[in-house]
């Protein structure tokens, strides 16, 4: 069976994919993970997940280009300038 190995560098850090290993069962997977991914105390924790337990989603359609839900969907420059002009708070370098 193939197990994916995720490692945590330090407490508080996310678990990151480090690689995989093959083992006949969970008991061996733990032994091999310690040996292959934990020889040097380089991680504070490892997650072992059978590959078949991982399901991946890799398509995120955005057919309608829903920009209004993102920062790049807004351009406030013009209106902000207008508002400052009206309030008389335009900075000296902006009034040109």
């Amino acid at each position, binding site marked *: 069976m193939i197990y994916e190995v995720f490692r945590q560098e330090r407490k508080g850090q996310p678990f990151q994919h*480090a690689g995989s290993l*093959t083992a*006949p069962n969970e008991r061996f997977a733990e032994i091999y993970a310690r*040996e292959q991914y934990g020889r040097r105390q*380089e991680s504070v924790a490892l997650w072992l997940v059978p590959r078949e337990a991982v399901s991946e989603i890799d398509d995120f359609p955005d057919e309608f280009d829903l920009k209004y839900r993102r920062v790049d969907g807004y351009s406030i420059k013009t209106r902000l300038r207008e508002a400052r002009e009206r309030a008389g708070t335009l900075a000296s370098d902006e009034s040109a």
Partner: protein
Amino acid sequence: MDTRTQEFLEYVQSGGQVETGDWMPDEYRSKLVKFIEMHGNSELMGVLPERDWILRAPTLQRKLALTAKIQDEVGHAQLIYRVVEDLGKPRTACLDDLVSGKAKFHNVFHYPTRTWGDVGVIAWLVDAAAIVSQKALLKCSYAPYARIMKKICWEESFHILHGRDVILAMVTGTQEQFELVQEALDRWWEPLMHFHGNPIPADEDPMFVWRIKSQGNEEARQQFLDGYVPQIRELGLEIPDPALRKDEETARWLFTEPDWEKLRAVVTGNGPASAERLAFRRLSREDVAWVERVVLAEAA
């Protein structure tokens, strides 16, 4: 080249990363398998020159360091074969091809070790030459391989320091010890100059074209010389190539052209220790076959 392959080529050449499940041209996959498999084989075979010296190491600390280094090399082989398996070649097939002589491994592991001086030179300079290549592999277009290279590079850094420490102990020791290092360097210089491969221009090297390697062979060799010639010379050691010098104008190292035919002969199994090492691998594989059978039976 069909459109899809052409697009893939442009993708990797502009820094695109490829994952295991992605579509890839057959040529890319087969080149990848060949390259990564050779690396796995080299880690496994690299154990043998050093393993010889565990019982003969001069101090307990050196014994422990050598054992830890070897443990790392085998661990690297395991990580690397795992990557090859995901590309479609089972590790038993890799090991079959290795012991039959069909698959290759790096030239440096086809040479014998004669003295403790060799052990220091290998751990310091051979590992240094390897790390130049391995750092470049961090940018490999095939992401699963690039990811394990991070761990491998991190562990190799202890190997080089250990090697350099062994050398320093000897060059600051007796005259006999100093001469042991010089003599080892004299024998290992040619394999070191061969290590990065013949100076095929990068854009004619399929491994570079597909961005499996991110630099050409000569680039890697120049980097190695830049980093390590000064370190070698500052110890009072002589490099056995009178033509070796850095051209100030071009900032390139010039040297006696290595014999590339000899390199080809060595990596196709005609090195001084090739037969012996492969025989040992074959034998130990037969010897431990029972472990695999028991483990797999127990787990079933």
